[in-house]
C-alpha cells in the first residue's frame, strides 16, 4: 500500500477548513471566514498567506461605504489541489 500523499499545505486543520468553505463559493469575505473558523485575524491571515504562497488562494480588496473589505477566493490551481486532496482522503478511508 502506498503511503498517504497528503497535500501538506491544505491538510493543516485551519487551511483545510478554509479550502472546504471556499470550495462551493466564488468568494468569501475575510470576516465571514474568521467567524466560521473561530480564529483571530492574525491567525487567519497567516493561513491565507500560506495558501496564497502556494498559489491556492487569492485576495481581492473592495471598498463599500468607505470601509475596506477583503474577499478571499480559491484559484483554479487551488480548486484542483483541494479536489486531489479529497480524492486522496477518500482513497485512504477506502
Amino acid at each position: 500500500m502506498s503511503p498517504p500523499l497528503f497535500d501538506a499545505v491544505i491538510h493543516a486543520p485551519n487551511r483545510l477548513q478554509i479550502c472546504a468553505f471556499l470550495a462551493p463559493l466564488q468568494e468569501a469575505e475575510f470576516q465571514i471566514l474568521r467567524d466560521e473558523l473561530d480564529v483571530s485575524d492574525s491567525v487567519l491571515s497567516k493561513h491565507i498567506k500560506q495558501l496564497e504562497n502556494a498559489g491556492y488562494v487569492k485576495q481581492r480588496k473592495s471598498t463599500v461605504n468607505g470601509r475596506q473589505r477583503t474577499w478571499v477566493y480559491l484559484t483554479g490551481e487551488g480548486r484542483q489541489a483541494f479536489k486531489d486532496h479529497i480524492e486522496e482522503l477518500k482513497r485512504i478511508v477506502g
Partner: protein
Amino acid sequence: MTNEKHSAASSEAHKALDTIQQMKRSAMRRATPPRWFGVAIALLMGTLVTLAVADMRQLQVLVILGIGLVIVYQSQKSGVALKTLPIKLVVITLILLLPMYFGTIVVGQLMTPVLGQTLAAIFGGGVFAIAVYLLSLIERRLHLSKSAAGKS
C-alpha cells in the same frame, strides 16, 4: 505496526472528510438568501407586472434598478458569493417565471374592463408577487435541505 499506522491515517482522513463536509454545509447555509430577500424580490417583480398592466412602463426601469440594488445589497451583506448560479434556478426562471410574467400581464389586461385599470393592475402584480415568493420558498427549502444533506 503498519496496520496501526494505516488505521491512524484512515481515522485522520475520515475526520478530515467530515470537517470538509461540515465547512461546505456552512458555506451553503451562508449563501442561502434570507427570507426578506425573497419577499423584496417578489414585491418588486409584482410591481413590474402592476406597472405593465397599468400601462406605466416608463417607471419599470426604476423597479429594475431596485431589483439590482437589492441583489447587490444582499451579496454585500452575506459576505459570500456562490460559485455559479444553480442551473435549476435558471431553468425555473426560464420555464416558469417568464411565461408567468407575460401571462399575468395578459390576464391583468383582460381583467381591466371588469375590475378597472387600477384593481386589475394590482391583481396581476399581486398574483405574480405571490408566485415569485412561493418559488423563492421552494428554492430556499431545496437549497437548505441539500446543504443539510451535504450534497453541495
